[in-house]
């Protein structure tokens, strides 16, 4: 029997997240390259879109179910997944490098006696064994890493690997009731940030820096973000100045992001900011100083005044979207 790779899928409010389908796709690809058998596991109560996993080529999913595991519990999820991984004797465990994945992966690794590689952006099997590439120093450099352990836990960076739909859409879902889950550490409440998209999950980000001159001018950033369906980001300088909340900070002491489009407004491009966003697919910079470092990594730039350009850009985007 082939060795197994187990894709751990993340659900919130009973819905599998987009990263879950990416994880399934990557697990499948790795399975075919290393001659493994791929299956998936998800912990939660009711999960309404669990059948969708079949569209991404995985044929077996275990649903570890208990009403008390509806929200994340690091102890409860860990124990349920470790028990299942031991039952099916999985050698590889794969998760998305989300808040949940980051929290859970190392716990699984210790319990399974596995090595743990986090936030991988490339998986190469051309040598016959796995070499993973992961960013360090917030993306200023990359390292190629390998496992010395037999059992292996891997997390993959969201938004980097694409979910690959497959023709084979039959999926065998086994529901396993988890008896008396370990709820020593558990989420008792979730406070949603009001109506806001998070920079860590957004496909487009509009960020503002010190060039915005004050918190009262961030409505220009918000309006542009609204017109694009984007999240609002911020530089460290404006977060430290108290203009914007820390959750919006992009950079080495904030969030590392790689959206399809990153619009930097009034941001000069300190090295610690660039580290957090330079892997964005397309970068637009709007800054008065034509020598600002942000222009070195921007695909398109306008070397002018944000107060002149942003309202015009918002108008133009709205026009195009309606047209």
């Amino acid at each position, binding site marked *: 029997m082939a060795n197994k790779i187990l894709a751990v899928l993340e659900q919130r409010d009973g819905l599998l997240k987009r990263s879950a389908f990416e994880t399934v796709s990557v697990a499948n690809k790795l399975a075919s390259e290393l001659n493994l058998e791929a299956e998936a596991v998800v912990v939660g109560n009711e999960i309404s879109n669990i059948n969708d996993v079949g569209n991404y080529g995985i044929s077996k999913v275990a649903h570890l179910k208990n009403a008390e595991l509806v929200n994340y519990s690091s102890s409860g999820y860990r124990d349920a997944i470790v028990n299942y991984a031991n039952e099916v004797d999985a050698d590889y465990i794969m998760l998305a490098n989300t808040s949940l994945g980051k929290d859970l992966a190392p716990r699984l690794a210790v319990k399974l006696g596995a090595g743990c590689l986090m936030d991988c952006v490339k998986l190469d099997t051309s040598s016959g064994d796995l070499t993973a590439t992961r960013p360090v120093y917030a993306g200023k450099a990359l390292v190629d890493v390998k496992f010395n352990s037999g059992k292996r836990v891997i997390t993959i960076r969201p938004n980097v690997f694409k979910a690959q739909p497959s023709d084979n859409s039959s999926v065998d879902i086994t529901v396993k009731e988890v008896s008396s889950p370990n709820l020593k550490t558990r989420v008792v409440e979730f406070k*949603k940030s009001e109506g806001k998209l998070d920079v860590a999950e957004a496909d487009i980000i509009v960020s503002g820096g010190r060039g915005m001159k004050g918190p009262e001018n961030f409505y220009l950033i918000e309006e542009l973000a609204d017109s694009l369906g984007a999240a609002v980001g911020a530089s460290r300088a404006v977060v430290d100045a108290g203009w914007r909340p820390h959750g919006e900070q992009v950079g*080495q002491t904030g969030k590392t992001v790689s959206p399809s489009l990153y619009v930097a407004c009034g941001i000069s491009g300190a090295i610690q900011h660039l580290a957090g966003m330079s892997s964005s697919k397309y*970068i637009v910079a709007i800054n008065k100083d034509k020598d600002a470092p942000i222009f070195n990594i921007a695909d398109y730039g306008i070397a002018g005044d944000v107060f002149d350009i942003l309202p015009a850009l918002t108008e133009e985007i709205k026009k195009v979207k309606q047209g």
Partner: protein
Amino acid sequence: MKIAVCVSHVPDTATKVKIGEDGKSIDPNGVTYVINPYDEYAVEEALKTKEKIGDDSEVIIITLGSDISKESIRKALAMGADKGVLLKEDNQRDSFGIAKALAEEIKSQGCELVFCGKQSVDYDNSIIGQLIAELLGYSCVTVVVELTIDVNKLTAEREIEGGKEIVESELPAVITTQKGLNEPRYASLKGIMTAKKKTIEEKPAVDSINLTEVLRMHLPPSKQTGRILGTDKSAVPELVKLLREEAKVL
């Protein structure tokens, strides 16, 4: 209660990374090393906890690294921590090897509460706290921005995508700290003077195997400098056209 804070000594975030001679790590020449920024929140929270629960508690700074790491221990001592331990290791370890040595020391010191930064800004793994907790059988809450400890129970707010989770757990526990949890205090002149007299115990880090291994370090492909389309709003239509037709992101 004994409170441990795990601190790491890392390149400042303004560092421009160059690859070192071994091809596996950065070139340390000209690099300024500092206490890991997230660990400052850990030190501050430990000191605040000590102030709240009373004077018989003790804050112990534990660091794994070479002699130069003592600078970060001194900084934490100057902020008000009671003593430091340097687990000496000149070679590179993976996260598991680091966590194993830290966990052994935490156990032998008898600490029931442990604070770590949520990640170190060099290797960015964000897993040391969880590994320590699992090795010791402690609870663990990560990326914490608000914390209340009440006898053996703790309530923490952790930052996740799109909001905050309120988590309940129990002591003994490891907490990993995120920006926003507190405002780290500055070391006073008196603090800096007193820190010089505080002990930093040095001992070899316990042996551990590396479960993962760095093969090489390399720089990301450099981005081609793009086009400056203009200097005022007259460039906006062209920008939008390029985003639609060339980049295809709209």
